[in-house]
């Protein structure tokens, strides 16, 4: 009589079974999530159709009708919205890649400075890092843009560097190269030099592994990639003509210009992210047991090789995963370009095109898709690098 009824009820019995219960809970959770998203999507579709709108991407082929100041590919107001989007995408990638490069260099420098035994060096890095990473990056961007635009002279009073480079509040004007037909020979030598350097590094490593003999790899590679093509360039009689900017009317004509919007965004993103990378690098280096350094020193190898062969490879294993998320942050923060009018992907397809066509949903989907793709590409690249750097267990 005292047997609990629960044991006889199959439903309750299933509930008391740990595995069955977990499956049930997961099914319910998945159903709720599915219901939530279908509600949201349905809501959007229904509301759009209520005001007579559909989801349609054909507007991408209409004339954009607006101009973009910075376009690395051919673009005019008669180009399509799709082309405007590509122009914006290239501008986003440009600032993201340039930002990642500068942030990495500065970050590693800051990380090493933070560990310096020199009091001043260490404190400078400390103050810099604390200031930069505790102020929102948007303010850095606005501050830099304001500084460039307000404090640099107007085109007529430009800082003149040998009548070739000019700095003013419209940007940094410099000569642009016009490649002559013979230039492809020089390019051929650069490509050849790169191929040689790749082969030579591996070869030198092999020789060193078997015989212990070390080649001056860096020197030889630089000679192959830079010096030889340079020599060829001069032998061929300098097959590049330079289009030098000159002041005509309101602005400089000819040459190329790096606009204040790009400079401000690039510097602000790099300086800001470098502060975080500096801390990551410091943490990575500190994480290496001091015994490792001592053991390497006991072998009698020089300090720079201790760093290169023992400390840095191990530190990188700690550094790379958080470094990846900093790169992602930088790429995504580049959308703050909007605040100063840098024509990135958000300002073009997600801004002007969106507004002129009224296709909010479509434009936002495109912009989100593009950021997702950029981020996934960065992470997969960094994951690949991370796997290469992991401890190989034999």
């Amino acid at each position, binding site marked *: 009589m005292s047997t609990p009824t629960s044991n006889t009820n199959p439903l309750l019995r299933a509930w008391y079974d740990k595995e069955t219960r977990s499956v049930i809970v997961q099914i319910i959770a998945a*159903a709720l999530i599915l*219901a939530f998203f*279908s*509600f949201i999507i*349905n*809501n959007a579709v*229904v*509301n759009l159709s*209520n*005001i*007579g*709108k559909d989801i349609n991407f054909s507007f991408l082929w209409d004339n954009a*009708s*607006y*101009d*973009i*100041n910075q376009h690395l590919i051919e673009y*005019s*107001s*008669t180009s399509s919205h799709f082309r405007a989007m590509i122009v914006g995408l290239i501008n986003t990638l440009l600032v993201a890649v340039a930002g990642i490069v500068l942030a990495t260099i500065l970050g590693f420098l800051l990380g090493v400075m933070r560990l310096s035994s020199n009091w001043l060096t260490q404190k400078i890095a400390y103050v810099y890092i604390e200031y930069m990473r505790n102020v929102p990056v948007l303010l850095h961007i606005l501050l830099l843009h*304001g500084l460039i*635009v*307000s404090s640099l002279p*107007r085109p007529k009073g430009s800082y003149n560097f040998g009548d070739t480079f000019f700095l003013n*509040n*419209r940007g940094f004007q410099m000569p642009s190269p016009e490649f002559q037909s013979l230039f492809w020979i020089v390019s051929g030598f650069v490509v050849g030099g790169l191929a040689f350097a790749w082969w030579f590094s591996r070869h030198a490593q092999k020789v060193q592994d078997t015989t212990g003999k070390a080649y001056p790899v860096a020197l030889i590679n630089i000679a192959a990639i830079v010096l030889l093509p340079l020599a060829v360039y001069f032998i061929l009689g300098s097959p590049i003509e330079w289009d030098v900017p000159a002041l*005509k*009317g*309101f*602005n400089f*004509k000819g040459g190329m210009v790096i606009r*204040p919007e790009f400079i401000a965004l690039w510097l602000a993103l790099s300086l800001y992210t470098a502060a975080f990378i500096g801390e990551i690098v410091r943490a990575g280096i500190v994480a290496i047991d001091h015994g490792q350094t001592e053991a390497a020193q006991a072998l009698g190898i020089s300090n720079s090789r201790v760093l290169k062969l023992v400390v840095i490879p191990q530190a990188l294993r700690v550094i790379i995963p958080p470094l990846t998320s900093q790169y992602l942050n930088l790429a995504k923060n580049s959308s703050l370009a*909007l*605040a100063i*009018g840098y*024509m990135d992907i958000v*300002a073009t397809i997600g*801004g*002007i095109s*969106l*507004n*002129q*066509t*009224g296709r*909010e949903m479509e434009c936002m989907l495109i912009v989100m898709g593009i950021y997702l793709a950029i981020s996934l590409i960065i992470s997969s690249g960094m994951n690949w690098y991370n796997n290469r750097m992991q401890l190989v267990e034999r």
Partner: protein
Amino acid sequence: MKLINKVLTGVALTAMTATAAQASTLEDVRAAGELKCVVTTGLAGFAAPDANGRWEGFDADFCRAVAAAVLGDGDKVKFVPSTGKTRFTMLNSGEGDILFRNTTETLSRDVDLKLSFLPVNFYDGQGFMVPAALGVTSAMDLDGASVCIQTGTTTELNLADYFRANGMSYEPVPIETNEEGFTNYVAGRCDVYTTDASGLASTRAKFDDPTQHVVLPEIISKEPLGGAVRHGDDQWHDIGKWVVNALINAEEMGVTQANAMNLAANVGKNPGINRLVGSEGSMGAMLGLDAKWAARAVAQGGNYGEIYERNVGPNTPLEIARGLNNLWNNGGVLYAAPIR
């Protein structure tokens, strides 16, 4: 499979009923007790908060007139500031009930952006402002200049067209708000600021010495500015449309802020005025409002002429002459449909 289908249909149906059950805008506004009016983020003379945080200006007064007609109190307006880019999304998503934001009526906005425009309340055109020191006298001299433009506006497209048509080059400097345009122009990031002539007048009035800046003679576009509502609610569109018409008609008939309520109190000799102020006929009931809707709208901020003179007219810092914005019988093009 059947079960899944049932569940999905259920979800979809709930979603549809949840979204489709929408009251009319008039009911929504009455239920909320306030009119959400989409305005600019700040353009002196058109809509900008004063020192006490009260929104003042031409567009702000039209918002108040509508609120007075619909809710009986012109101060029951919630001003929703928007940039050139966000304005239509805000209106269409229901963050605003009506838009008065020096907005140009165009075919694509009317049709493709799903807006319904109210009658034009300001006839404008795009112009250029340059520092007087540059010595530029015509827009045709602007080849190679850097031009500040607000993004998401018709000006942006006109500018591209104008320079292309005249074979000139320029560097567009995109900015979000009038304030940002002002800052960039003052700092010399751009040589030229372009927007509607009224906006230029408003910006120019902000300089310590406005004579240092000249507005070039070329007007490169037609910019009929007007209010707008969402597509699909004809009653609400009618209300907005007739409030604007009422304000213009009021000026024509001499109904003013001062005398509107008195005229409404008793039946006068002029049947036109009687119909406007609601002492005769049932115009208000046709719109779903009470009889004195128009009288209240006028009593709130005055008729069209009073609103114009107070905010942007020759005696204000903006100094914009009536010009096209005068009544048809005074040399302008304001010709409002009659209230009858």
